[in-house]
């Protein structure tokens, strides 16, 4: 199997996994889902590191370094905001709110 077909197979399988995993997310948590997946999309930092890590210094390397910066803003910011949001969804003590 050529490399392209291998990658395409993986892509299609990932589509199915993604669909079933996301489908299970509670509608109440759609905002955190967006913000967590947004943080995870920062995974492109991998591509940026590969480019930024090369030996010779040229325009491409500078592009790579800048992309590392942007992606890490995306990652840290995304996870921090999700954590702040999800902290609010903490299980409330049952005595509160319901009649007691």
């Amino acid at each position, binding site marked *: 199997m050529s490399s392209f077909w291998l*990658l395409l197979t993986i*892509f299609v399988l*990932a*589509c199915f996994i*993604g669909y079933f*995993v*996301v489908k299970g997310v509670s509608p*109440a*948590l*759609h*905002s*955190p*889902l*967006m*913000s*967590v*997946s*947004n*943080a*995870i*999309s920062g*995974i*492109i930092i991998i*591509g*940026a*590191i*590969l*480019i930024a*890590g*090369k030996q010779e210094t*040229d325009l*491409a390397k500078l*592009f790579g*370094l*800048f*992309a*590392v*910066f*942007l*992606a*890490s*803003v*995306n*990652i*840290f*910011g995304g*996870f*921090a905001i999700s*954590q*702040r949001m*999800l902290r*609010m*969804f903490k*299980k*409330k003590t*049952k005595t*509160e*709110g319901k*009649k*007691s």
Partner: protein
Amino acid sequence: MTSYISAAYLASVILFILSIRGLAHPATARHGNILGFIGISLAVLATFFMPEVHDYFWTFFMILTGGCLSLFFAFRVKMTSLPQMIAAFNGLGGLASVFIAGAEILSDTPTKFESSLGLIIGAIAFSGSVIAFAKLQGLISPKAFVFRGQQILNLLLALGIISSCSLFLLSGDIKYFYILSLLSLIIGFLVTLPIGGADMPVIISVLNAYSGWAAVSIGFSLNNILLIIVGTIVGGSGTFLSHAMTKAMNRSLLNVILGGFGLKDQKQATANEQTAQTATPQDAAFLMENANKVIIVPGYGMAVAQAQHILKEMAEDLQKLYGVEVKFAIHPVAGRMPGHMNVLLAEANIPYEDVYELEQINREFSTADVAYVIGANDITNPLARTDSSSPIFGMPILEVEKAKTVFFVKRSLGSGYAGVENPLFFAPNTLMLYGDAKDVTEQIVENLEHK
């Protein structure tokens, strides 16, 4: 060494899947977020051991500055600014793919097609998010911005993108790549501009999906399996959310993107003159404390007035002092991002067990004594079921009119975002409470407590 890296990548893929899986329930959601962070850290660490990576210092430096800067903003920003923060971070992720695609093109053996695709999607994600951010932050008018010939211009731009992309693929001349970048950025701006405030949940989800699909393209271009899998999960999640949002409005994605929703119907909407019955907060308090069951329907107006905390007090007073059953009903597109109302109610410490989605609660309105609609309009409009000429026809609504009494907390009798008059305002069982959502609810709470 490479097998260790592959093992680490595999582990991080599993962590990402478990991370999203954790969001299935509020109780496990925080673990999910932490798993996601571990996954990305593991992947980054493993990448540093790749044979291609020779230089570490500046990369570390960039991660550190980027991380500190964003943590500073992420922890300082107010909870009300969440939607625009998400848009901002999303945009930066898109811009990162633009630069990666650019760097890939500059390399000796570029994968032109995949990189161009990554560039186009990333650029649209970036410029679209910039507009979404500006609208949510109030830097530009959140209203739909439509001008003559807009769709023709967009079509021309799309043709320009296709032709400059083909020219670049055929000739390899980098000049066309720069033109392609420019056109993609412009089309991202233009496509987001005509999208009005209430359509924000859709467009934010779409932009979220784009940043994932951009990562997939970059993955194909760099032959990186991890990027492909994770990008697909993100892209799929955004696509799923946009589908859920458009379904909740009974509109197609194309219809949302073409924009200008409701602009035409405004004249007709203001022509009708009927009188609505008004009530005072005292009346509302009296009716609710004698009720058996009250269902509260929050909308964007609650978010604007920051009324969720006082709303919690009202719910608690009703439950504790008067033994009333109180439930919250949430429409999928209420607010400015998917699940916006849930986050606000959670912020006010309202137990998520009391918060119900549209399908779960709709049949309960007929057994409710009071429906308390606070800052919502279109999502309760019965015309969506009865009037096939209405722009909101077919949109699933919260059937508040089935409750014995309906209270609408609103600033004025004006029509909602869709520009459609809500006949419910003039229904015999509807009472209007005019004023700011927070002020009105505060007065009700006072009346509930001092008796």
